[in-house]
C-alpha cells in the first residue's frame, strides 16, 4: 500500500472513534454539565441554567439513597444467583455435551430472540394471580393464602437473574472450554480427588470467564429499571426507575443527570476494585 504504515491504524480507528467521541464522550461531558444546573427563575419547567450547584449531588443522593442501595443489593444478588445457576450449566455444555455442544450453545442465546420484554411479562403472568404457579403452591400450603410472588423484591431479583443469565453463561463457557482436560487429569494423577481438582485447577482456570460474566451481569443489572417496573412494586424501585421518571415525568434534568453520574461513578469504582482484587487472587 502506498500509505505510510504508521498512519494505517489511525485511519482505521478514526471513523469509529469520531463517532464514539461525538455520541458517547460528548454526551457524558454534557451530562456532567447538566448535573450542576439549577432552574431558571421565572422560566418554564425544563429550563435550566449553569450555576455549578454541586449540592444537586447531595440532594439527589440523600433523597434516593434507598433506591441506590436497592440497586446495588439487587444487582449483587442477581449476579451471585446467575453465577450459581450458570456455572454448572456452562461446565456441562463445555465438558459433557459431546457433539451437541454447538446446538446447546445456540440454545443459551436463543431466548434472546423472543423480546426480553415479552419474556419478562410472561414471567409476570406465570407467577401472577392468574398463573398456575401461585394457586398450585397455595393449595400445597407451600406459601400462605395471601402471599404473592409478583410485585415483590423477590420477583425483581428473579427477573434480573433470568434476563442476564445468558450474559453470564457465555463467557463462563468460553473460558471453561479453553481448559485443556489434561490439566485436570494431571491433578488426578497427583492424587487430587474430584473436588480438589475442581477447586484447585478448574475454578482458577475459569476465573477470566467468572470476571467477564459477573461484570456483564452486574453492570446492566445495577442500571436496570424494566424488571423493577414490570415485576416489582412501588416499594422495590431502583435508581434506574428514579432516573427515568425524573427525566420523563418531572423533567428534572439536573437531578436525573446527577443520579446518572453518581451511578456510573459508583459502578466504575466497584468494577475497578473488583478487577484489582480478583486479579491479585489469580496471581497467588
Amino acid at each position, binding site marked *: 500500500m502506498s500509505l505510510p504504515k504508521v498512519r494505517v491504524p489511525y485511519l482505521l*480507528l478514526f471513523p469509529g472513534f469520531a463517532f464514539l467521541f461525538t455520541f458517547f464522550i460528548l454526551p457524558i461531558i454534557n451530562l456532567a454539565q447538566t448535573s450542576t444546573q439549577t432552574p431558571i427563575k421565572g422560566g418554564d419547567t425544563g429550563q435550566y441554567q449553569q450555576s455549578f450547584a454541586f449540592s444537586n449531588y447531595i440532594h439527589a443522593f440523600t433523597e434516593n439513597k434507598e433506591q441506590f442501595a436497592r440497586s446495588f443489593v439487587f444487582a449483587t444478588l442477581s449476579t451471585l444467583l446467575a453465577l450459581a445457576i450458570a456455572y454448572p450449566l456452562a461446565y456441562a455444555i463445555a465438558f459433557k455435551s459431546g457433539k451437541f455442544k454447538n446446538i446447546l450453545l445456540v440454545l443459551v442465546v436463543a*431466548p434472546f430472540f423472543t423480546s426480553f420484554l415479552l419474556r419478562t411479562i410472561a414471567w409476570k403472568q406465570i407467577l401472577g394471580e392468574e398463573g398456575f404457579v401461585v394457586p398450585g403452591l397455595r393449595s400445597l400450603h407451600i406459601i400462605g393464602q395471601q402471599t404473592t410472588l409478583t410485585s415483590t423484591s423477590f420477583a425483581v431479583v428473579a427477573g434480573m437473574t433470568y434476563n442476564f443469565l445468558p450474559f453470564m453463561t457465555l463467557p463462563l463457557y468460553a473460558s471453561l472450554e479453553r481448559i485443556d482436560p489434561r490439566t485436570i487429569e494431571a491433578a488426578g494423577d497427583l492424587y487430587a480427588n474430584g473436588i480438589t481438582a475442581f477447586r484447585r485447577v478448574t475454578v482458577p482456570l475459569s476465573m477470566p470467564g467468572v470476571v467477564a460474566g459477573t461484570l456483564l451481569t452486574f453492570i446492566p443489572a445495577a442500571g436496570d429499571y424494566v424488571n423493577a417496573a414490570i415485576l416489582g412494586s412501588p416499594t422495590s424501585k431502583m435508581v434506574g426507575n428514579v432516573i427515568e421518571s425524573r427525566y420523563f415525568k418531572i423533567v428534572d434534568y439536573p437531578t436525573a*443527570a446527577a443520579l446518572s453520574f453518581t451511578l456510573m461513578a459508583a459502578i466504575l469504582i466497584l468494577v475497578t476494585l473488583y478487577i484489582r482484587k480478583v486479579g491479585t487472587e489469580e496471581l497467588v
Partner: protein
Amino acid sequence: MSKKVIDASIPTIPVKARFSRWFGRNLLRIYMIFGFTYLFIPVAYTFVFSFNDSGKSNLIWKGFTLRNWQNPCGAPEVCSALSNSIKIGLLATTFATILGTMVAFAVARYSFKGRSASNLLIFLPMATPEVVLGASLLSLFLLFKINPGFWPTVIAHVMFCISFVVVTVKARIASLDPRLEQAAMDLYANELETFRRVTFPLVAPGIAGAALLAFSLSFDDFIITNFNSGTVTTFPKFVYVAAARGIPAQANVIGSSMFFLALALVIAGQLVNRKKIR
C-alpha cells in the same frame, strides 16, 4: 442360565446403589435439562399464548385459535412497530459493523501510540449502564435542538453496538493462524491481495457473528430507545406500553416468529460452516 450362576460371576449391585451411581454420573446432564427448561419457560409460554383466542388482553387462556397467526398485523400498531425495529436494526447493524470492524483490525493488528487508551474507549460504553447512555445522549440531542426520533435512535444503537462488534471481531482476528498470511505472502501475494483473499475470508464468520449480535442487541433494546425515539414506536416499546392495558396476542406471534427465524438462521449458518470445514 440359572440365577445362581450370574450371582456367582458378577456380584449384583442393589437397585438403589445402581440408581445413585447413575444419578451421580448424570447429575450434570440432569441439571442441564433443568437449566434449559428454566431458560425456555417464558419462551414456551409466549408461543402457547400466541394461539390464545383472547380479546384485547392476553392474560387468561380462552381457547385455541389460529387467527392471530393468520393475521399478525391485526392489532393496531404491532406491524408498524415491528417494521421500525427492523429498519433501525438493519441500519444500526450496518454502520456499527463497518465502524467496529475497522477499529477491531486497528487494535488487533497494529501497535501504536494510544492503544491502551483506545481499548479503554471501547470498554467504557459497555461498562456504562443503559439508563446513563440513553439519558446523556438525549441531553445532547436536546442541547442541539435535535428532536428525538428515528435517526437519533439509529445513532444511539450504533453507539452502543460498536463496542460489542469490536470485541467479537477482535477475538476472531486474534485466533487466526499468522502462518496462513505468511504463506500467502510467500506465494507472492501483496498486502492487499493477502487481505482480500486470505485474511478477510477467515475473519468473515466473526464479522457475521458480530453483525448478528448487533442486530439482536438493537432489535431488543428498550431503555436507550425509550430515551431517544420520541414518538417513534419500536417493537419493545410497543410491548412495554401495551403491557399496562394488556398485550395483544399478535405480539406473541411476532416474538415467537423472531425466535424461530433466528434459530433457523443460526442453525443454517452452523451447517454451512461445518460443510466448509469438511
